Each structure stands twice: as C-alpha cells, then as structure tokens.
C-alpha cells in the first residue's frame, strides 16, 4: 500500500516536472521565434480590451452626438473629452466602439469554436470508433455541408433564425464542425487499434470511457492547433456577416459592422472609420495565425527534437 502510494506521488511529481520542463521549452522556443511573442502580446491586449472594455472606454459605445459626427482623431468635444480615434457618422467614439468590438469578436470567435469543436469532436469520435453506417452517415452529412459555400449557408441560416449574437455563434460554430470531425475521425481510426485502447477494452472499460477518457486526451494536441487557426477564420466570418448586415443588431458594436458603416464615408476621406477596425481585425487574425503556426511546430514531434 505504502509502495503504491509512493509510486503515485513519484508519478505525480514526475508529471509536474515534465510539465514545467515543457513550459520552459515553450517559453524558450517562443522567445527564439519572436513573432509568436508579439502575437501573444496583441492577443492579450485584445483580451484585456474585451474584458475591461467598459472600464477602459471613455464613452458609451452607442451614445450618439450628431453635432460631433465625423470628428477627426485626437479632436476634442465641447466638454473637453477627446475622441482619440475620431468619431463616426453618428458622433459615436470610435475608440470606445473598438474596445467593445473586441469583446464581440473574441466572444464570437471562441464560443463558435467551442460549439463547432464540441459537435465535431463528438461526431468524429463516434464516426471513427464505431465505423460502419455511423461513420457513413456522419461523414456524408459533413460532405453535404462542405458542398455549400459557408457564407451562403450562414446567410441562409441567419435569414431564417434572425440576426443576433447567439444565432451568429451557433451558425459559425455549426459551420466549423466538419473540420474537427474529420481530423478526430482519422486519429480515432488509428488509435482504436492501439495497444493501450485494447488494454482498456480488455480491462472492461465501457465504450464511453474508452472514447472520452482513453482516446480523446490523445488527440487534443492537433485539435488545439486547428482551433487556433479556426478562431481567426471565425472572426473573419463574423466580420464578413456583420459587414453584410447579418451579424449582430446595429446597437452592438463589432469590428465588421464598424467597417461596413465606413463604406459611405471612405470617398469623403474619413479614413479613420475604416482603418482602425480594419487594423484591429488584421492584427487579431494575424496573431491567431502566427500563434497557431508556432503551436503546430511546437507540438510536432519531428520538430521537437530540433528544439
């Protein structure tokens, strides 16, 4: 008994040591690569803006002031308040809306990945583990969905369901599940024949336990990489749908809708209305992509030896 306990403690200590070593390696590799550090800083800044937007924002994001519309960046209002990034066509502060927009972009990006990832992982696990008609049905459903251009599908759903943040998350999430399902299915197909799965089966573990406690933890690493790339593409899709007026209601500031609102004033040289939300989208998406790239390299066993 004492031996077993000691062995357990040693195992736990060993895992903690292993984790610390991996963390140190991750930090070292990231610093050496440089760009991922910058990407992480940008994403952390975006996350802070999203989390503390209301506290940081100088104005109410929907507060209009028609008399102060289209104010240049750094211009002041009559009460001394400064529009750091200018005001929009309705006199709303661009900086404030940008901060609130970060909240929507990140929320939609991450929540949609959670929705799509959950559906895709479960579908992929079932498809790969059981095979046969379950596999056929799930994969054909995926094929059918992939046959439709995603934006068209999203527009169709949003027209039926109505616009709104939760509908948007649902639509964008559902649009992502096939990617996860296919990757999980492929990994499950190979893992289900491995010895440790056979062992779990021989020990009498239930099918649910084998799928979710034995196989799933072993395929999470590539999914993390996919998710990091997907967040970027979902943020872009949200921006595109908001640009088309199908995203969230007009009272909710998003980067995509801010960009859409800037269309009419671009020819009038009101550049700040398009540039700031555009830059925010580009930086966030780029950061997620750079981080995804780095994560992929970091988790790749072939590259691990080099680092």
């Amino acid at each position, binding site marked *: 008994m004492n031996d077993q306990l000691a062995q357990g403690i040693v195992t736990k200590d060993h895992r903690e040591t292993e984790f610390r070593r991996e963390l140190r390696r991750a930090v070292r590799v990231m610093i050496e690569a440089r760009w991922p550090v910058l990407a992480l800083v940008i994403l952390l800044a975006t996350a802070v803006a999203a989390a503390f937007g209301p506290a940081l924002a100088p104005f109410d994001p*929907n*507060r*209009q002031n*028609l*008399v102060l*519309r*289209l104010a240049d960046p750094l211009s002041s209002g009559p009460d001394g308040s400064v529009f750091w990034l200018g005001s929009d*066509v*309705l006199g709303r502060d661009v900086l404030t809306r940008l901060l609130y927009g970060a909240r929507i972009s990140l929320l939609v990006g991450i929540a949609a990945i959670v929705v799509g990832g959950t559906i895709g992982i479960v579908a992929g696990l079932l498809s790969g583990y059981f095979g046969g008609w379950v596999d056929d049905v799930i994969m054909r459903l995926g094929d059918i969905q992939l046959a439709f251009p995603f934006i068209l599908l999203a527009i169709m759903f949003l027209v039926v369901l109505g616009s709104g943040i939760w509908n948007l998350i649902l639509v964008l999430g559902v649009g992502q599940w096939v990617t996860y399902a296919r990757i999980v299915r492929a990994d499950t197909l190979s893992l289900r024949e491995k010895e440790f799965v056979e062992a779990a089966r021989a020990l009498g573990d239930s099918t649910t336990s084998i799928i979710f406690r034995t196989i799933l933890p072993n395929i999470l690493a590539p999914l993390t990489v996919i998710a990091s790339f997907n967040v970027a593409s979902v943020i872009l899709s949200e921006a595109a749908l908001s640009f088309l*007026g199908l995203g969230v*209601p*007009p*009272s909710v500031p998003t980067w995509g809708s801010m960009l859409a609102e800037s*269309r*009419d*004033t*671009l*020819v*009038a040289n*009101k550049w700040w209305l398009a540039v700031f939300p555009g830059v925010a989208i580009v930086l966030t998406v780029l950061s997620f992509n750079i981080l995804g790239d780095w994560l992929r390299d970091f988790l790749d066993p072939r590259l691990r030896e080099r680092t």
Partner: protein
Amino acid sequence: MNLRTLVARAGGVALFCLTVIVTACSQQPEDAIVVGLSADITTFEPGMISSRDNANIARHIFAGLFSLTSEGDHVPDLAHTLEISDDGTAYVYTLREGLTCHDGESLTAEDVAYTFNRIADPENRFTGNSPGFVFTSIGFQDAVALDDLRVQINLARKNPIAFGLITEIYIHCKDAYEAMTLDEAASNPIGSGSYRLASWTRGSEVVLEKTREPGNFQRIVWRIIPEASTRTAELISGNADIITNVVPEQVEAINGSGRAEVQVVSGTRRMYLGFSLSEGSRQMPGGEAIQDPRVRRALQYAVDVPTICRQLLSVECERATGLVNPPNDHPDLEPYPYDPSTAELLLDEAGWSRGSDGIRFAIRLQAGRARYVNDVNIVLAISQYLQDVGLDVEVDLMEWASVYTPLLHARSMGPLFFLGTGGGLWSPIYDMTDMAEVGSSTNYTHWDDDRWFSRWVDLAEASTPEETRSIIDEMLQVFYDDGPWLHLYFQPDFYGVSTRIDWTARRDERVFLFEAGLK
C-alpha cells in the same frame, strides 16, 4: 538613351494607353443611358407595382391615359381628351388613333377598359399602387369601352383628384395579358409605352429598348446598385450616367471628380415614423403604449428633426406638420419642436413613467436598408432620441426588397416603422389620399380615426374651394394632434448626373428619361 530611361518611357506610354483604354471602355455608348438605382425592383405586374423605383422603370414600359409633367400639369398621352359627367362619377377618355402595344396588338378602348377591370379584379389579389391606392381613393366601379376609341371609367362618388390619380394606371393590352398567367405577367410586361423590356436580370439590371417616341436613347439600362459608395464609384468611373440616393457625404467627391455633378432637389416624399395600430402590432412590445394618442403626441417632441436634416442630410429643413407637402399644408400648424422635457412630461401623464431601470417601455423600430437617403443612420439617430426619453428601442434593419417590402404589402409592420411615401404638389388631397380608407393599402398604420375618415364624404361633396380647404384643414388638424405618424421631413433628393448627360431631376422622384439627352 539609356536602358532605364527607355523602360521608364515605355512604362509611361503603356500607362497612358491603359488609361485611354480604360477610359474608353468605361464610356457608355451614345445611344444608351445607364441609371444606378439603390433599391431592387420586384415586379412588372401593373397591378402590383408600388415602389417608386419600380414605377419609374414601369412608366417607360407602360404609358398612361394622361401623364404628369415636372411642373405638375397633366398632359395628354394615350388619350387626347377627357369629358367628366356632371355628377363627377363618369370619366370618358378618347384615345389617339393608331396606338399599339409592344407585341403589335392594336390598343383600343377595350384594352383600356380591360386594364382597369383586370387590376380591380379581386380574384387577382393585386396589392400595388393602382388597386390599393388609386382605386380605393377614387372609388373605382368599372370601366366600359363605348367604342374603339372611347372608354368610360365609372366611379362610386365624385372625387376632386380622380383625374390626376387615373394617370397613374399602367395601360396594357387585353390579348397579351389574357394569354399569360399572373406569374408570367410579372416578369414579361407587354406595355404601351416608349420602351419595351429587353432583359431583366433580377437583383442586377433591367434593360429597355426604344419602340416609339418619345425618347432620345435607344437603350436604357437600370442597374441595381444597393451600396451607395459603389453607385458613386460607378458614376465617377463613367459606368453610370445617373445615380439616385447619393449619400450627402459623397457629394463633394462627385462634384470634385469633374465627371459628374450632384443635383439636390427639395423632394415631395413624406418621411415619417409610422405607429402601427393593428391588433397584431398591439401584441408586440410597445404596441399597447402607442395606441394612446397622448403617447404618440409625446414622442413627437422627442425627436430633433432639424438636427437630423442638417447633420445627416446636409440640408436645412422645416419639420413636417402632416402628410401634405407645403405650400398645400395646413397654414396654421407649427412643427412640433424638439423638447424632450415635454415629451417626458406627456409620457408620465399618459401613465408610462420611467421604471427603476429608467425604461418606460420597450418597442421595436423596423426599417428597410438602402432605400432612402442615409436611412440607416437616420433610423439609428431617431432610436437614440427615443431612448433619451426612456424608451428601450430595438432597431430592426431589414433588406428592402425581399424582407421589408413584403411586410409593407401585407401591412404587417411592427409598432414603429420608418417609411417614406411619395407625394405631389398638384393637390393637397393627393397627399392625403394615403389615408383614403382605413383599409387602403397605403394606410400601413391601420389608423381608423373617424374624425378623419368620415370627412372624405364631406370633401367629395364640397362645392367651393374655400369649403374644400376648410375641411382639409380640419382633417389635417386631427392628423397633427392624434395621427399615426411621427412627423419627420420631406426628403431632399440627391441625384448624381454625369457631365455627358443633359437631364434635370424632378421634385417628385419621377426619373423619366424621355427628354434626357447627351450634352
């Protein structure tokens, strides 16, 4: 000459050639004119046409018995004379000889009678401007061909503006339309006007070809360009000759381009926020509150219309006092001032005090996108003003042609909706005719105040201009006090016109190109 100089010169020449080619490519042919519209069109069925853009195209395909000039005069078109019976209920038109429809069929009095009776036929369930607005207003009974050239239109009652309203009917030929289903008729118009439909790519463009005079261009291309910046870019690049609904922020860019200029005209379209008083709307948030005329009156004080005009339309405007265009409006009514304190006081008195969250009641505000000048921003600005006096406004912006227009046709609007309705200057009664009956297709509000609707009989029977004016003013007072509109403004219209085109915009939004030409 060294290599660098040679390359630089060759590059310069290539760039110049490219510019010339691109410029040449973007010039329209001399026999064609291209108009960029902001809203899509939905039908060419004469009984279903209702929007102004749709009507503008249709008027080139279908002629009327008489037509309305930009000066507000009615002049002969297919008909050359009109006789009205003493009791004012029979209108006899005499057609010009030798008229034909686009398929070559002779256009006779029988075709004109068929046109009127077909549009009025309840089996067809038409809901356009002709049956829903014109016929309900004039009390249309039936039309009878007296001989080949004379047709008699019978009305239920005398109506002082029936003559003007009848000009709005799109005349078409019997044989052609009897041979088509309603669906076929909606997309294959066989008209009586100067132009015939050559092609229609839904959501994209309509091409018309000239068949007879008047008209200076062989082809008219109507392109649907919902996005304002794209319309402007197309105008400046020479891909469009005329564009409608120029966004005020883009006026400077167009005028500075040297290729086009913006014509700003004081339009006759009445812009308003409608209070929908239907039973369906009553069940929605805010629907109950606006049933009370005191609430509607309170909200009149909540919106700063002159500031909206100045900031979002780049014009100074006087707020409307009703549904009649000046100078035909009620001379003694003052526009509601912007006075949020009064609005709050009246809302309190009406029993809608602010709750602990500062909200009096929630309400939905519906609007179409890209139909009117700067409409989205104006709707958002109005919602802000309403929020300032304690309303929780949910703004619902919809695609115009496929989502908002069907709601309008079905008169199924939510409690608050933003809309503009075309008006005229030739008679105050014309503007009031939107509310000719409770069930008029243009009474989107379902307003049913007897103090208004019972007066139409008095108006028809008035024997002197003074008596007519007095009744009109009494009706307008009711509309001002307890009406179903939150009065906004008469829309200024912004047209971008290429410098190669000789065309003058009208105040009544009719984009008629019969007299347009090259400079």
